[in-house]
């Protein structure tokens, strides 16, 4: 009777030990998975990839030149100063396009991370 009671006591002790060990092991594995998962989650948001960037840059440049040209053409049409303002605003549009492209590519490198870090 006494022997069996002692046996069960040591059993529970070793059981608790085993559980402790397994819990620690599980913790370690969870941490590892979590950090890996986090790294995976963060990557695509920061770097949309070269293909996206290329498509964006081209359309930003063309759109700005177009808008500049249309504004100049419209002002010329209204003021009768053709083609002076068309030329001026075409150049403004080109400058705006370059600004757009520079901003788009800058955003890709640091802008998104920077925007997320508590300025909100």
């Amino acid at each position, binding site marked *: 009777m006494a022997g069996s009671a002692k046996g069960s006591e040591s059993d529970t002790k070793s059981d608790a030990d085993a559980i402790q060990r397994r819990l620690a092991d599980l913790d370690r594995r969870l941490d590892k998975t979590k950090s890996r998962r986090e790294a995976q*989650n963060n990557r695509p*948001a920061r770097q*949309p*990839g070269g*293909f*996206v960037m290329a*498509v*964006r840059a081209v*359309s*930003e440049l*063309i*759109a*700005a030149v*177009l*808008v*500049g040209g249309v*504004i100049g053409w419209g002002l010329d049409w209204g003021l009768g100063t053709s083609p002076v303002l068309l030329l001026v*605003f075409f150049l*403004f*549009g080109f*400058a*705006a*396009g370059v*600004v*757009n492209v520079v901003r788009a590519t800058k*955003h890709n490198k640091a802008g*998104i*991370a920077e*925007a*997320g870090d*508590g*300025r*909100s």
Partner: protein
Amino acid sequence: MASDQAHSPDGAMPDPIHQFEIKRILELDLFGIDASFTNSSLWMVVSVVLISLLTIWGMGGRALVPNRLQSIAEISYEFIANMVRDIVGVSGMKFFPFVFTIFMFILFMNMLGMLPGAFTATSSISVTAALALLVFFTVIIVGFAKNGLGFLKLFVPAGIPKVLLLLVVPIEIISFLSRPVSHSVRLFANMLAGHITLKVFGGFVTMLIGTGGALAAVSIFPLTMALALTALEVLVAFLQAYVFAMLTCMYLHDALHPGH
């Protein structure tokens, strides 16, 4: 709109533009405005219905261990929520429903367009322009509502000599006005170009088979190309929806924090 000339005589190139023809399904005239229900509207409705099914029915179980539909719904939520939090900031989460709706709507329209016989609603500039203008005016209204006239600081970068402002302000204004243009044209042009390319390569296959003989065997090359392009188009369909949503977030960030 030209009458049906899609199925040209054997051996001739099928018209690659025909797939973008708008057909009226239900004629409707609202005070002189043509508000007919077209094939484009039909596929927009289909995408809205599918999105609603995915989110409402998919999340209906609210299971702790999600099934496939619920997983898709949860992944898309997480994806957009992270994007909004990363780019607009935590205070921007009140725009999450807006960005999520736009993203899912465009994604489904793009993806449904990949089905044979379906109409790609995003391949018409009117649809993408409407979406881009919605974002554009939202940004302007939110910008002025949140910052008042301070929103105009967007056009006047800090720390620039007064003389240069004469140059910089018009450039910034044009840059701002060009946003809805590039926003809408990018999506529209990508979908249009992709579908035309697919159709052209598909047309090569039928043309080569139509000629028969040794040339029919060569048709394997355009077929391979069409297959590869289909895969690329699925990627583009997703990427364009992603880019549209990402830029929406960036513009909303500008509306909330115009000072840079």
